């Protein structure tokens, strides 16, 4: 049996209350939204907070407002099911709708939130295990130990950013609003992440992600492709988000390509995106862009399936995503389908 460790649960009704409570709890406190990441982790003793501040009771955090023409604000506690099925998200920010709809399973998408997904803990085969499993094999530095079991000589942790929504949000140029005791700030979704499996977020632990702000969708088209073993339940072992803005005659005026689950943070493939700028998408160009985009992907042996396969599939999935947006024939299907 997996039991939660003891804690006190607080259910603030307003953001101000929540900021006060999480500040007061200090290092003993953690925020929780849907709990679909945190509770399993607590049951496996990856976290043992003494105080939990639950965000779901704060009405304002659940809202989705705006239009694709003006831009959209999605409250951090909007559920993944709401994000995936919202008409304005589907219309203007398709990559995000596909990514949200590809997370976990239908009941978990009714519970899990967009904010929780963006703040998802990084993952590793040696970490996402029960306490007993980790104890038997020897603890690693992400929790309870002092070495990395994947790269034993390494001074750092290489656990993988495994959120589906983050690559999509970054490709769409999203920003996130953070509120803490020190006030409010807005950062780009890309800047929310650090290349460190342990301290993977740039925000302070007591800063609350309040909403995700999407820019006007004018002229942008986007998609999200997800690789995993099963067509459900599984976290991504590769996520590819692509957003393109094309001008007259199909010339690409702006492009963003972002890879998920290949490093401790989402990887923005800037050089690859640069190759399509000012060009028309041809099969040949797409092949070269996909090659360039997959170069920064350097998988380690800490996720499902083999390293070589995951590395090869980065190229294949970028190619498929670009072919889909270019209207060329492609294998497979976007989103989480298999």
């Amino acid at each position, binding site marked *: 049996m997996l039991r939660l460790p003891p804690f006190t649960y607080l259910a603030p009704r307003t953001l101000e209350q929540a900021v006060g409570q999480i500040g007061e709890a200090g290092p003993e406190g953690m925020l929780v939204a849907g709990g679909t990441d945190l509770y399993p982790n607590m049951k496996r003793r990856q976290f043992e907070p003494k105080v939990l501040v639950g965000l779901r009771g704060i009405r304002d955090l659940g809202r989705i407002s705006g239009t694709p023409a003006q831009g959209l604000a999605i409250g951090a506690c909007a559920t993944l099911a709401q994000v995936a099925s919202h008409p304005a998200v589907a219309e203007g920010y398709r990559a995000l709708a596909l990514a949200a709809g590809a997370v976990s399973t239908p009941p978990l998408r*009714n519970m899990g939130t967009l904010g929780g997904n963006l703040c998802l803990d990084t993952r590793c085969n040696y970490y996402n295990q029960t306490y007993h499993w980790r104890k038997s094999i020897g603890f690693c530095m992400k929790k309870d130990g002092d070495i990395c079991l994947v790269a034993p000589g390494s001074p750092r942790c290489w656990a993988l950013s495994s959120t589906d929504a983050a690559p999509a949000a970054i490709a769409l140029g999203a920003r996130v609003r953070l509120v803490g005791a020190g006030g409010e700030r807005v950062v780009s979704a890309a800047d929310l992440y650090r290349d460190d499996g342990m301290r993977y977020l740039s925000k302070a632990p007591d800063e609350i992600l309040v909403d995700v702000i999407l820019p006007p969708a004018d002229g942008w088209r986007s998609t999200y492709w997800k690789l995993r073993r099963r067509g459900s339940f599984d976290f991504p072992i590769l996520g590819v988000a692509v957003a393109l803005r094309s001008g007259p005659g199909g010339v690409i005026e702006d492009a963003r390509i972002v890879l998920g689950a290949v490093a401790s943070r989402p990887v923005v493939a800037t050089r690859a995106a640069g190759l399509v700028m000012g060009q028309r998408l041809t099969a040949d160009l797409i092949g070269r862009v996909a090659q360039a985009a997959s170069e920064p992907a350097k998988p380690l042996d800490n996720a499902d399936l083999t390293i070589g396969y995951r590395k090869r599939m980065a190229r294949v999935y970028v190619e498929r995503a670009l072919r889909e947006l270019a209207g060329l024939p492609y294998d497979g299907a976007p989103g989480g389908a298999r």
Partner: protein
Amino acid sequence: MRVRVRVNGAWRTAEVWPGASLLALLRDALGLCGSKNACEQGECGSCSVWLDGELVCACLVLAAQADGREVRTVEGLTTGEDLHPVQRAFVEAGAVQCGFCTPGFVVAVVDLLSRDPDPDEPRIREALSGNLCRCTGYQKILDAVRLAASKLGGSSP
């Protein structure tokens, strides 16, 4: 701590510890053992119940979070000895082997058919993609969904 939850139409009160899940509340405190406890970490769907009308995994909801809210479990589908049409379809299609996953599948199918009375195959697969079955190989469960849809008046055979 004391929680008060409306379960299958009736308000129930129970004393639980702050870390108790909704699943523990239902099974251990209220004696409703239809929802099964298997993985306790969102990996199987056998604990699925409706919370305010939405299907959730009861193993990952705190009992405290359900306080004052409406819960519907597999026990709430029928009264007395009569089976719900979806349950009958599972029996008739041979979709039950050990039966451990069955309550989770049944509520997922009821949920699906309430939103889409005549779902096509991809839609059925998607709706059941949060439930694992170790015995049946799923084919007969898919048969049961089609049978249930026809019993409930959808047009599938």
